[in-house]
């Protein structure tokens, strides 16, 4: 029959028409409800109870139901509902706990029909049975729900929720006997109208009060609930346990929720406080409302869809004393304005990037990029043809993969493991680290370490052991620097296999191609805008003619830049030195300074050194006189350079090794940033010990305090298996010492090892020994303990 009605409205030229419009009420509204014919709306509040006719251009007041001189609290409505079967029948819930029914067919001015004064507290909600003409349900603050038969004077049955106040009651639309009730303590109960003794089912839906619920008009098992915890949840009640299938996070507590007619996944919400807008959500898209009505100036208190089968007209009443009709085409659609993007970095350097298709293609057309390594996959979400307001959600996912070889970050792990950061003299640390870098064939890094040693370990302070390595050639540190600029740089980079990187890698490209091809065929079945993207275009994209790179940009640059970046860094230095007059009184040091470069530089080609040696000797004299501060700027730039290159490991390591010498040169924030990046990397590679060492050695307060966070260790008592809330080792429940060794039964002093599974433990040695011979817990509890 309802279907019929819809057909007539649709075909008989009677389709709902209208525009966004509003009218002023005299007082704030608490609730609204529509007549079945979608032509009238009733507004109820503390000081208002009126019926308005919805006309083409305006609302027209038809009837004021608040009659009589003296305002009665019975008129002070918390909720109102219009019967969906009988156009003359209305019910209101009063704040003083009275349930009133109204019969518009009455000839007298006072349309009040019946008065039920059974509830002791405010009635929050009334609800008519969707098909039964005389059945009315109410839910009250006093914790009771009552079912009234309008032919009788009293309630037919009373349901006690056995918990706190009832906030909403709703008859199921399909199950004749079922209704749902929501409670202030976060519970939702399902009742059978025939069984008032106990509920059929109960589950906790929200944290804090559940203000509202609504059964899905088509899907019989779905119930949407909204709560003070700002969530809207959709529950599937078909299964044995209510299952949460969707969850929408709003920005304020949810006061009302109403499924949108004819749109399976859409629902409208308004909030209780602070936020005045009405949102229409696609529950599958929980982070952004698909439509938004922003007309009200105070909180919206009631929302209702104008017609049971028309998804485009929404009526709302508000505390700002207005009644609105919202038209869907006037809604603002935040989705339109949003640019959804997703970016994720894999452990081995793979990068996935998803963005709106239009965005990506537009971009790539504008900015073709050579040397592409991208495998874009285009896919479309299957669109529900009935949902015309769904914004076209086709997006492009690009996956950037690294070459298998380069993806092994072996050098990083090795370096992290082998670097020495503290505990020895600076010179030794530098030497050690240079050696490590060298062995991993990272020449540039090795050189840097060597240079640092030269800069900061003035010959006077050099350990004599190092002097033995001196080669005795007239080479000095500075020329050496030049030498590696010219020659070693390139090879150093090459050996790190970064050049190969840029070549790209076609692993699994075929698969991706296939999948995108199948997706395309899917797309062609859809009749949505954008699905007619030609397949060859997609394929072309796969081949990677165009690209816009975000993260890849600097990776790419990495291969080319060093050749010119580093020299820039080094040359000014040389000029500076040349400009300075040499200090003759430091000739004495001259003999010492050459050593400095010697020990690690054997492999570094010395030829350039010799070629420069004539110039350099004279500078050496000067160099040793320079205070180490002189180089600070240079070293700082060097660290920055490494960090920008992505080798934050080097930056942090140098920072730690040099410590005070360089720290003040770099601002705290940058340091902190480097530390966090490095620690993050280390932890991704599960180098816990090293990351911990780095944290410990760091001088940034923000970093060192990482080690002071969450230092609590929660222990179970080995006797009663309950968590020990007490500090110390005496369980406050069973009053026994919890730290006895399960093997020797003595109290453990010192290292105590225990099983997290069964809480038993003991001396490390004892447990180790025990577990060698047995897999079971020594306490005999039968738990299969593991020591790893």
């Amino acid at each position, binding site marked *: 029959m309802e279907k019929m009605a819809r057909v007539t409205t649709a075909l008989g030229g009677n389709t709902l028409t209208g525009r966004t419009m509003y009218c002023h009420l005299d007082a704030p509204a608490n609730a609204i409800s529509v007549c079945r014919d979608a032509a009238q709306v009733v507004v109820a509040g503390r000081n208002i109870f009126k019926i308005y006719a919805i006309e083409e251009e305006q609302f027209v007041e038809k009837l004021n139901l608040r009659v009589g001189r*003296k305002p009665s609290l019975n008129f*002070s409505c918390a909720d109102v509902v219009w019967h969906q079967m009988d156009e003359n029948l209305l019910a209101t819930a009063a704040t*003083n706990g009275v349930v009133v029914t109204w019969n518009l067919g009455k000839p007298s001015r006072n349309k009040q029909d019946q008065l039920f004064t059974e509830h002791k507290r405010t009635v929050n909600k009334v609800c008519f049975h969707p098909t039964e003409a005389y059945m009315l349900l109410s839910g009250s603050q006093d914790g009771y729900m009552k079912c009234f038969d309008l032919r009788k004077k009293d309630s037919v049955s009373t349901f006690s929720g056995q918990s706190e106040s009832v906030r909403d009651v709703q008859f199921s639309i399909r199950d004749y006997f079922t209704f749902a009730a929501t409670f202030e303590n976060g519970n939702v109960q399902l009742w059978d109208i025939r069984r008032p003794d106990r509920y059929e089912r109960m589950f906790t839906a929200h944290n804090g009060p559940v203000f509202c619920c609504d059964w899905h008009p088509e899907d019989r098992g779905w119930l949407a609930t909204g709560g003070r915890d700002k969530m809207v949840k959709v529950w599937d009640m078909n299964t044995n346990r209510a299952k949460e299938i969707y969850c929408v996070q709003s920005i304020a507590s949810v006061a009302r929720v109403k499924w949108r007619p004819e749109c399976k996944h859409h629902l409208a919400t308004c909030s*209780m406080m602070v936020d005045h807008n009405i949102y229409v959500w696609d529950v599958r898209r929980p982070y952004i409302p698909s439509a938004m009505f922003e007309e009200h100036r105070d909180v919206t208190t009631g929302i209702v869809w104008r017609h049971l089968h028309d998804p485009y007209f929404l009526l709302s009443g508000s505390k700002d004393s207005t009644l609105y009709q919202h038209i869907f085409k006037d809604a603002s659609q935040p989705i339109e304005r949003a640019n959804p993007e997703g970016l994720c970095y894999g452990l081995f350097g793979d990068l996935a990037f998803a963005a709106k298709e239009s965005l990506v293609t537009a971009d790539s057309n504008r900015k073709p990029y050579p040397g592409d390594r991208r495998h874009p996959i285009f896919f479309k979400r299957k669109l529900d043809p009935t949902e015309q307001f769904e914004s076209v959600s086709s997006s492009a996912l690009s996956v950037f993969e690294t070459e298998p070889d380069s993806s092994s970050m072996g050098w990083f792990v090795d370096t992290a493991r082998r670097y020495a950061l503290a505990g020895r003299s600076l010179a030794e640390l530098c030497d050690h680290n240079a050696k490590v870098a060298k062995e991993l064939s990272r020449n540039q890094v090795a050189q840097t370490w060597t240079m640092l040693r030269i800069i900061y370990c003035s010959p006077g302070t050099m350990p004599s052991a190092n002097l033995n390595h001196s080669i005795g050639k007239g080479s000095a540190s500075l020329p050496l620097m030049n030498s590696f600029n010219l020659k070693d740089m390139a090879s150093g980079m090459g050996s790190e296999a970064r050049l190969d990187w840029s070549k790209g890698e076609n692993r699994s490209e075929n698969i991706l191609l296939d999948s995108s091809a199948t997706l395309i065929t899917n797309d062609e079945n859809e009749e949505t805008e954008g699905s007619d993207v030609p397949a060859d275009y997609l394929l072309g994209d796969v081949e990677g003619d165009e690209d816009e790179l975000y993260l890849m940009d600097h990776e790419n640059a990495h291969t080319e830049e060093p050749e010119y970046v580093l020299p820039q860094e080094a040359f000014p230095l040389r000029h500076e030195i040349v400009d300075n007059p040499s200090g003759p009184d430091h000739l004495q040091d001259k003999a010492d300074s050459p050593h400095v470069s010697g020990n690690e530089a054997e492999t570094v080609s010395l030829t350039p050194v010799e070629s420069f040696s004539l110039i350099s000797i004279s500078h050496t004299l000067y160099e040793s006189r320079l205070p180490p501060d002189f180089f600070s700027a240079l070293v700082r730039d060097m660290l920055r350079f490494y960090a920008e290159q992505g080798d934050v490991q080097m930056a942090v390591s140098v920072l730690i090794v040099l410590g005070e010498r360089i720290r003040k040169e770099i601002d705290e924030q940058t340091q902190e940033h480097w530390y966090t990046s490095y620690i993050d990397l280390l932890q991704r590679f599960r180098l816990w010990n090293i990351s911990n060492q780095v944290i410990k050695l760091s001088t940034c307060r923000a970093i060192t305090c990482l080690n002071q966070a969450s230092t609590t260790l929660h222990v179970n008592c080995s006797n009663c298996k309950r968590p020990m809330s007490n500090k110390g080792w005496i369980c406050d429940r069973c009053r026994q010492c919890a730290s006895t060794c399960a093997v020797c039964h003595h109290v453990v002093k010192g290292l105590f090892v225990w099983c997290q599974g069964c809480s038993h433990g003991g001396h490390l040695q004892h447990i180790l020994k025990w577990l060698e011979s047995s897999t079971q817990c020594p306490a005999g509890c039968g738990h299969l303990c593991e020591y790893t």
Partner: protein
Amino acid sequence: MVFLTNNHPVFAQFQKEEKRIRVSQPSTRGPSAFIPEKEVVQANTVDERTNLLVEEYSTSGRLDNITQVMSLHAQYLESFLRSQFYMLRMDGPLPLPYRHYIAIMAAARHQCSYLINMHVDEFLKTGGIAEWLNGLEYVPQRLKNLNEINKLLAHRPWLITKDHIQKLVKTGENNWSLPELVHAVVLLAHYHALASFVFGSGINPERDPDTSNGFRLISVNNFCVCDLANDNNIENASLSSNFGIVDSLSELEALMERMKRLQEEREDEEASQEEMTTRFEKEQKESLFVVSRAFDDDIVSTSDVSRYIEDPGFGYKDFARRGEDHLPTFRAQDYTWENHGFSLVNRLYSDIGHLLDEKFRMVYNLTYNTMATHEDVDTTMLRRALFNYVHCMFGIRYDDYDYGEVNQLLERSLKVYIKTVTCYPERTTKRMYDSYWRQFKHSEKVHVNLLLMEARMQAELLYALRAITRHLT
């Protein structure tokens, strides 16, 4: 093995023992002047949990008198201490010394030297500037601006409008951000209400010679409630010993009888709308005469306390006597804690909402199903009457409550006590405390005090938060 030595159970036990002794020993009168020492201490020895709670949540690290008295209701104590600890010590928009200074300002409105002394210590301990303690002239303008809202909130919260809020938050040199303001308001309401509890339960000053410092200028004896109370002691003793017992026994029976009748009668007694309104008004009017003695002339305020406040003469004025302003009654259903207050407070000062929510819920639902000597009594009605009566005095009206019940359930002496404790707590005397519900246990009277305190706090919060909401819309 560090922890073993530090927290060795025996040792810990010893510490606790010591702590308890230290608190109760020097004061022979116990934590409260109204409640015999043995009532409180007994309860304490039983309750290990209290000590644990104190260890975890006390800012001063000791078992103070308030906690001792509250530990009669251990369930409640936990939520009380948790929320208080959160306001004072956990993440919040205000710096720690500010929080304590605001507490001092709030307590000063009721000349509650107990709370002032306590927070002067804490204020200094958290690094507050000692100079501020010389009075309001010495604090930053920003804090000083809070004075107005403190005054209104304490005595006539219904006068708070969005203009007050706007004045505080409007941009300028000394403006408050909304989260800061909400934090301050929560603190103010908490300490106003706590002052009610302190006076209502006759909390004795802490005996703690080692914390005396230069700023502890407020002499403890000046306002010591117990002195007032002691004067009445003899009189009271003779009163109760002679005919009090018999009398109060029948009183109790009568109360039980009335409760029962109300419960049964509810349905058939159909009061008209007007009737209900009149009842509310009547209850309000009646509360006018509840405190008959004219106190207005002898406003006690020495410079010790009043330096933290301005306009010390400003006090509670009966809502019903609001006169020509014709302020509408606050309809509880239009702005409830559960629906509105919570959301706002939690939004601006995260998590406090949950803690307060739990505390209100706890105190409202707390029951042992006993009344004096009777067991298995549903006291819901009585609790609701107490709660709503407090709100009634602040002009908050519940549509779904029949204020006739208040009249039937709360005897006159109890009304006097309630009115005094919530509106002029500093005037509470032991005689008032003793004169109502003579058959009831002390723990039950403490329960009453808890209800009054929380109802008052909620009323203040509702007014303040409603003003903030109006400011926002």
